[in-house]
């Protein structure tokens, strides 16, 4: 009898709660606020959440439908990331942002099967740029191979268009993430005549003595870093220790935040990194952020990450998600969109300079459009340089194009191999 009553109560609760949940747009966040990589996970999660809060508070949601945010802690652990996915997959998640290449690789087949779009901005599987194979995965505005190519193009511009005879060392996190740029840099080495030296660092990367002794012996002209977490400040400190010229040390966008340079102090002065977006609070959007989110105390976390590099990245990811949701509403003519509709919005997303200015983020990110053949955006990035005296990153270049022709060729080969392994016939969904 008791069980029957309990079941009836549960059913009534679910019926009552059902419409309320359906009337919201669910944006989950697979965050990591704990564990060894928390220092990088927290600002991203805060930026992502604060932007969505701003849209709710200022605009009343997207197309009049409020946003519902949920957060699941992965601790940057692949197994926990998959568990998070299992717990939210039935709750109409509009887009997943796993914030981990390891988790991304695990979720690609699952999201394909479940029909849930995934956005892996500047990380994940690079060949997901081919939307004919990876219908549900998007990696705009840039991917790892773009990043590697942008660095080489920047170095070409610094060396009068020739890297012949130069030696470039890649210091990489010994993981799926860290090994991603190796094929691109190897191909580009053949094309531009530089010697590539690959040096792995085991996770987490607190001890890099051997690696930097090798760099000191080999005397490369440039060191390119694909690091994350504690590996970054350790490497920058070691570079300063061996007196490696900091202006010849360039990190990927995951090695270019305040967390990476501040612990090193003055030694990090002049260090460079890729930037896939702007940073700092000198954008009109921060006036609204202050009014609707910060001053009202509705900010995520502790509110002290606003404007940092990784906070800006989280905010940018949320902005792109919101714009894709708007596009989906426009395409389908309904406000309460489903994950499948959201996918359509992402596949037809168009970001223009005018739109960025309208959103209060002029020149914050590149203009790009998404299509079935290109889920990866423009691939452009800028170079930023750390000023240890002013304790700020300064953008020192405009947007630099990657060698997209070569990257698309490589991506096509890799994605078609994936399709063959999984007995898939590549085709566009729209």
């Amino acid at each position, binding site marked *: 009898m008791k069980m029957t009553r309990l079941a009836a109560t549960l059913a009534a609760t679910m019926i009552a709660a059902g419409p309320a949940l359906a009337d919201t747009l669910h944006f989950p966040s697979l965050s990591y606020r704990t564990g060894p990589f928390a220092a990088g996970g927290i600002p991203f999660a805060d930026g992502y959440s604060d932007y969505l809060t701003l849209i709710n508070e200022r605009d009343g949601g997207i197309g009049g439908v409020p946003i519902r945010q949920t957060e699941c802690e992965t601790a940057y652990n692949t197994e926990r990331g998959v568990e998070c996915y299992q717990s939210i997959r039935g709750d109409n998640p509009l887009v997943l942002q796993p914030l981990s290449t390891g988790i991304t690789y695990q979720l690609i087949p699952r999201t394909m099967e479940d029909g849930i779009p995934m956005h892996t901005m500047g990380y994940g599987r690079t060949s997901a740029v081919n939307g004919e194979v990876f219908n549900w995965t998007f990696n705009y505005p840039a991917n790892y191979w773009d990043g590697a190519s942008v660095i080489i193009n920047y170095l070409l511009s610094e060396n009068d268009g020739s890297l012949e005879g130069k030696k470039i060392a890649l210091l990489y996190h010994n993981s799926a993430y860290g090994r991603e740029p190796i094929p691109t840099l190897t191909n580009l080495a053949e094309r531009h005549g530089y010697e590539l030296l690959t040096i792995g*660092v085991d996770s987490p990367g607190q001890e890099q003595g051997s690696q930097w002794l090798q760099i000191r012996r080999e005397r490369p002209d440039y060191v390119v870093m694909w690091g994350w977490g504690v590996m970054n400040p350790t490497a920058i400190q070691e570079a300063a*220790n061996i007196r490696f010229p900091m202006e010849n040390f360039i990190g990927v966008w995951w090695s270019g935040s305040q967390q990476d340079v501040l612990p*090193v102090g003055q030694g990090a002065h002049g260090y460079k990194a890729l930037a896939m977006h702007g940073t700092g609070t000198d954008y009109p959007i921060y006036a609204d952020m202050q009014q609707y989110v910060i001053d009202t105390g509705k900010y995520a976390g502790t509110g002290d990450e606003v404007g940092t590099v990784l906070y800006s990245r989280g905010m940018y990811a949320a902005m792109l998600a919101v714009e894709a949701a708007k596009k989906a509403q426009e395409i389908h003519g309904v406000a309460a969109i489903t994950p499948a509709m959201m996918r359509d919005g992402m596949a037809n997303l168009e970001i223009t300079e005018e739109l960025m200015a309208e959103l209060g983020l002029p020149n914050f990110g590149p203009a790009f459009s998404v299509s079935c053949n290109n889920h990866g955006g423009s691939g452009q990035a800028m170079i930023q340089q750390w000023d240890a005296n002013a304790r700020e990153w300064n953008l020192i270049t405009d947007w630099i194009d990657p060698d997209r022709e070569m990257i698309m060729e490589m991506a096509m080969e890799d994605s078609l191999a994936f399709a063959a392994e999984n007995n898939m016939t590549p085709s566009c969904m729209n």
Partner: protein
Amino acid sequence: MPDTLLFAMEATLNGLTAGVMYALVALGFVLIFKASGIFNFAQGVLALFAALTLVGFQSGQIPFSHLINAIFGTRLHHFGWNMPTVLAIPATVLVMILLAILIERYILKHLVNQEPIILFMATIGLAYFLEGLGDVMWGAEVKALDVGLPKGMSSAVDEATFAWFGYGFYIDRLELWAAGIAAILVASLTIFSQYTKQGRALRAVADDHQAALSVGISLRFIWVLTWSIAGIVALVAGIMWGSKSGVQFSLSLIALKALPVLILGGFTSIPGAIVGGLIIGVGEKLFDFFMQPIIGGATENWFAYMLALVFLLFRPQGLFGERIIERV
């Protein structure tokens, strides 16, 4: 002299200094294991907690400010002053002693006469608790730690070796200081355990719990003392490692570096921790130097464990550990 030999000598020197850094972490494990038979899984987190507390004091950060702000809607973060390092270090030592008292009172006291595995599990719980406490108290952002220790290449070593061999060796000054501090630490611990009443009591407990209890030595006091010393050693390790790459939560993973050192040196020997650290440090640097061209880099993490496994096969008690004699 051939270049390869010079480079190998440089790698050996760097291995020795890196080994001292590993030994600093291993020392904390040895102290607690020796006195209480507990393998303290929380030793790495103790180092993290100590370093977080030190930076918090130095920068005048208000403990639990995030929690206070969340509950009361305030915007408190700092007291508005910075504490000099000479005061911040003793203040942190006091916190570590207080922590030792609390650990004894609320965990160890209730687990007297329990199986070692129960005590080990308790330290796993303690590790998670302390990591969370550190986060709530001081925040999870990366913090720069500067206690005035010099960093960067030692010009003296560079110039001297250049004069001798025509090639300047690289040694990090911070690691040279770490070697000096480790030597002072080991000497202090030896003097303490040999020449003070408390030290002798500690050794008595380490030798035989029951016999020590029968002559009136308080086991509870000894546990507090041991955990306090381990806390201070953790602070030293936290300062050294935190100065290298900032204080962040991955600092607790330095404990993983200590395990192979302990297997090599033995869980009960302070000199063993030092020698084990040096063997691991030199071994991994030389292995990486010679094998990198053949198998690629990134060998440091697994090589230490592989070496420890080989040692386990031939000398399970470690180089300096107590010999295991079992009669059947």
